[in-house]
């Protein structure tokens, strides 16, 4: 049984079918690249999996059905995500933004906050140590700025904080919604390096990555799924998908498919 599988996952908004009977499977420790043109339903697929939009069909995760679960319950099952346009709390500190991801593992609640101050504080600080460690994996400077509002950080560091927040929930599956959006090619390379570090630290972690940049996908994921008009049009290794005619057509239009990068023969995939 695979770690994560969808079967006939369908999301409709009125007459529009944004995600159409999609089936995707993923094993533990693997990275899956999700590609497709704008509006092909990639983000809606994430929203359906994380419970933000109602969907028909089946989602199974670690042998349990996620059907009908609320977003917060799905997070507690072990699926965390980032968003295409940043959803950080800009006024809150870097630490606070990461800490919130650890809320489900916290061992103190309202009662402790009011009447057992020492316990509550010790609990927060335990999480704070983990948050500092996570941030340090990406950029030691982020720890030094731990008490600064996130709004004062540059774009790439905000993206890092957002990935840290998702990782803070200690997920088994991480959904990254176009992490390189709005970043320069150099920053994208840097971020992908960070992701490899994370992969090394958490070997059991599975990732689904939405990405426009084919080179980025090639560097990080062995398996690729291509979407168009809400349907899965291709699946397989990067080389296979990049060679697929329907994919080339979806990306480049009819007849111009030759401009797509041809995969280098024997290109290594870091896993």
């Amino acid at each position, binding site marked *: 049984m695979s770690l994560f599988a969808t079967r006939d996952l369908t999301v409709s908004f009125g007459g529009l079918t944004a995600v159409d009977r999609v089936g995707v499977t993923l094993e533990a420790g693997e990275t899956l690249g999700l590609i497709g043109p704008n509006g092909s339903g990639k983000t809606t697929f994430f929203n359906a999996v994380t419970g933000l939009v109602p969907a028909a069909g089946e989602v199974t995760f670690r042998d349990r059905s996620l059907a009908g679960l609320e977003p917060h319950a799905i997070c507690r099952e072990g699926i965390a995500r980032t968003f295409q346009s940043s959803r950080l709390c800009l006024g809150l500190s870097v*630490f606070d933004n990461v800490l919130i991801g650890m809320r489900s593992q916290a061992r103190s609640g309202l009662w402790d906050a009011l009447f057992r101050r020492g316990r509550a504080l010790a609990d927060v600080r*335990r999480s704070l140590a983990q948050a500092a460690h996570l941030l340090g994996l990406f950029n030691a400077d982020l720890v030094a700025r731990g008490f600064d509002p996130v709004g004062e950080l540059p774009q790439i560091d905000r993206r890092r904080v957002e990935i840290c927040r998702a990782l803070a929930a200690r997920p088994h599956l991480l959904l990254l919604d176009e992490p390189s959006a709005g970043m320069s090619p150099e920053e994208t390379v840097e971020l992908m390096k960070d992701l490899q570090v994370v992969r090394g630290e958490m070997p059991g972690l599975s990732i689904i990555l939405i990405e426009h940049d084919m080179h980025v996908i090639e560097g990080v994921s062995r398996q690729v799924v291509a979407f168009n008009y809400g349907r899965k049009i291709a699946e397989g290794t990067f080389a296979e998908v990049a060679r697929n005619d329907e994919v080339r057509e979806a990306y480049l239009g009819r007849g111009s498919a030759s401009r797509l990068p041809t995969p280098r023969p024997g290109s290594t995939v870091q896993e």
Partner: protein
Amino acid sequence: MSGAIAVWAVELGLFALVTAALLAERPFALGATAAAIALVVVLARAWPRGRDAVAAAFRGNRPAAFAGGAVLALALPFPLRASPYWTFIATMALVYVTIGHGLNLQLGTAGVINLAGAAFAGLGGYTVGLVTVRLGLPPSLALLAGPLVAVAVGALLFIPILKVRGHYLALVTIAFGFIFTILMNNLEFTGGPQGIKNIPALRPFGYAFTSAPRLLGMTLPYHANFYFAALAMAALVTGIAWRLHNSWVGLVLNTLRDDEIAAKCSGVPVARYKLLAFSLGNLAIGLGGAFYAVMVGFVSPPDFDFGYSLIMLSVVILGGLDSIPGVVLGACLLIPLPERFRMLHEYRLLLYGVAIILMLLFRPRGLWPAAVRRYGLREPAAAFGPDGPVANPATAGEAS
């Protein structure tokens, strides 16, 4: 030690200034006080080194500063003893501190807009009236029942509130506020426009709150009883608000205020936490209203109309949304100041309006903006804990 003395000197100076500002009647005394206050303000602006030194002294001597502040707060009724009126106003400021913390938890911390603060205070106040006058129960018991009724009604109102956001949420709560005053005006058992009169005075342990206390050889007006009780109440609620803010609960509420979807996807049950913030807030607001009813001995619909909801809102916004000291400062400025400018009477709301506009222009985050949560740590690097950075704290944490 010298730092503590400096802190106390500053506090004593402020205390003298405040009492002078409250009590000065003659034009000369009034002018001198105004000049002194203006001098302090100008000095604070023009002499940043002095200001920073004072701030550093306060930071370095927290316990001394708190102790000094507590002593002076307790001492306030003594210089005010000739004026029951100002003792009453000071008490009202403390009631608004209590209410302000409740509203701040809802609006500032959790982003649950509540424009019916006065109605929830009214629920507390009217419950006191009904429980004591109609049922004949002791007022101390009614003081507990009032906030609970506010919470219960708030929980009912929360069902429609949960479904709406932003402007619509504001409208729902405004409507609730109006429904409350209309109901109180028209219902038979709440006394209609006459309200409920003759709420019996507090008599905890046989001590009547209507008797003038003699302390340290001075006779204080009976209002001082309520002042001390309100001070205890406001201090308690401030302490609770502080602890809530600097904990997981405060962080969770801040997150769902800033981005509900991010909070959901981080494992936060948003509806449950909103209900928690709304209920705890109503508890404090209802407590303030109940205390008011016991103190004044009388409740009527105009005591809890929409204008008071706006005053409560102004206290929170002026002080600084989500800022605990801001609420205290906001209430202590906004409640006595209009009384000082009584010549403006009908235009009191205008004064609030002008104050809010000036605030939005010059200090959009409030007089005392909310500070970053530090969980008792000075340096970010201290977050790693006493052992410093470790290889993998996730597994280290599990071992302990």
